[in-house]
């Protein structure tokens, strides 16, 4: 059998009381991520991609199905089982301001993680944790002076770098990145994407990359899953998936990607009544 860092099998999640909603948020979805691999999960809002990401990150227990991490079935029903799982998985969020406590300096936010996990990290001494903190900042390309600052004093891109540093603090083996760049300015998006890529190459942790932008997913990932209405409708290597989409929904998503070249072609075909 192929080796996976995480495998989600037949995951079903209902929000609210089962049966009240017409359909589950995630409906028998399965996916796998190999060690060191960046896998994309795409779909529109409401498709269940974030919910499935939360299940992979151990932040949400599925109603049905199992989460297998590194060959071990995660006890999603038990608090302890989820805690063990969460140590190995970290998340990077879309809303960079919401992901950080506004009343903690960046230094304090990073300290908190390292302190909570001091035993697992074998860092009982504050000095060790300070060293690790600086190492983390360096890894995400931030200057040490941000340690004293509060989240509101940083730009969105800088905050996302902090978010990534915090996620990396505990040496996760899987990173779940939920729309990590869609709230950022375009010129900064690529910086963060490249950072995630280089971190993946250097540290070798796997990444489940949740996004709605197919062009970004194609840039980041080797493989991708396409979700619609809670179900995974298509999966495969990005190149094949985007060159020759099989499912109509994938095609629809592809057509919707705004692209300069495509747009210029389209405008020439449109019967515009351009004056002057």
């Amino acid at each position, binding site marked *: 059998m192929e080796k996976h860092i995480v495998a989600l099998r037949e995951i079903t999640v209902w929000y609210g009381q089962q049966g009240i909603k017409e359909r589950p948020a995630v409906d028998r979805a399965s996916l796998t991520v190999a060690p060191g691999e960046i896998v994309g999960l795409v779909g529109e809002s409401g498709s269940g991609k974030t919910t499935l990401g939360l299940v992979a990150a151990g932040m949400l227990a599925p109603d049905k199905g199992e989460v297998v991490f590194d060959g071990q079935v995660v006890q999603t029903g038990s608090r302890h089982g989820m805690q063990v799982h969460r140590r190995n998985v970290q998340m990077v969020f879309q809303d960079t301001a919401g992901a950080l406590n506004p009343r903690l300096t960046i230094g304090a936010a990073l300290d908190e993680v390292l302190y909570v996990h001091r035993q697992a990290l074998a860092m009982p001494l504050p000095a060790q944790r300070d060293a690790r903190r600086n190492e983390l900042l360096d890894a995400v390309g931030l200057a040490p002076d941000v340690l004293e600052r509060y989240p509101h004093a940083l730009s969105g891109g800088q905050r996302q770098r902090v978010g990534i540093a915090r996620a990396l603090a505990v040496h996760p083996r899987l990173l779940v990145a939920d729309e990590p760049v869609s709230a950022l300015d375009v010129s*900064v998006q690529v910086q963060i994407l490249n950072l995630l890529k280089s971190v993946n190459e250097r540290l070798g942790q796997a990444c489940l990359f949740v996004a709605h932008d197919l062009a*970004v997913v194609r840039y980041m990932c080797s493989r991708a899953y396409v979700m619609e209405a809670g179900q995974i409708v298509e999966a495969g290597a990005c190149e094949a998936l985007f060159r020759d989409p099989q499912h109509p929904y994938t095609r629809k998503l592809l057509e919707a990607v*705004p692209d300069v070249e495509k747009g210029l072609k389209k405008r020439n075909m449109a019967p515009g009544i351009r004056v002057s």
Partner: protein
Amino acid sequence: MGVETEIVRVTELQVAFGGLEVVHGISFSIDTQEAVALVGESGCGKSVTALALARLLPGPPSCQVEGVVQVAGQDVMDLSPERLRRLRRDHIAYVFQDPAAALHPSLTIGYQLCEALAGSKATRRARALECLALAGLRDPADLLCAYPFTLSGGMQQRVVIAMALAREPQLLVADEPTTALDVTIQAQILDLLVDLQRRLGMSMLLITHNLGLVASSADRVCVMYAGYLIEFGAVEDVLRMPAHPYTRGLLDVVPRMEGGPRRLEGIPGMVPSGGDPLPGCAFAPRCRYATDLCRTVRPALVPLPGRQQQRVACHYPLREDKV
């Protein structure tokens, strides 16, 4: 209506919030029936510019606006409150980014839509239905008694567009109209806007940070950076042969669907947060071609040699063809 071909002419518009200048003297025009895109990243002053067109910015002391803004032949800055109200009613309509915030949550769609209309109840209702149908909404009669929260984001934005069309404006200002929506809906809403703009013969100012959207929808494009207009020209010229390194950078940072995967370099650094205007070109700190000249002398927006329609504010405009 006169015979003038320009619906909007902005001359040396400056906007400052509490002494902090955010728009530094920009000038541009929009012809009748033309779609102009205003492109830039957050904080570059594009929304502020759009609001200035209908004098929607707060007055002094919190905000100082200077320069000349002419819309439909009227000097917006000098209008009496009554004339200003009429201008806003008859000539300009806005579509904003967040449709949920643009609609009143506790009034029905029908009430909000009819509010701006004149005439008997029956004529207003008929016009409201017509607008909803124009905005591509099915079963408009049912929608009239619906509340905004029962609609999806895409439908809400269509309602907002219907409201914008109600008074048959000459100018539609769409400020990031698709940013809050899903990708597939995004394309639909943009197509709708472009179709309506052409069919109804409106002018449109489309504000966006997405050059892919600009390519399919606008006739001319203004690129803004840190409160300056840095490039201006026909969409095909600017997107195919960008002359400003920032415009080129914006084109290069977008992952593409066509062509093989390649590494994107991105633009180093970040958008200046305003406050300390640099003596030279605002983009110089992030520009790889910057020289001492760029850092000390601010380049003016001038026509490119050989390409009169394209203007660029750069000491060393890029020459090679691109895209």
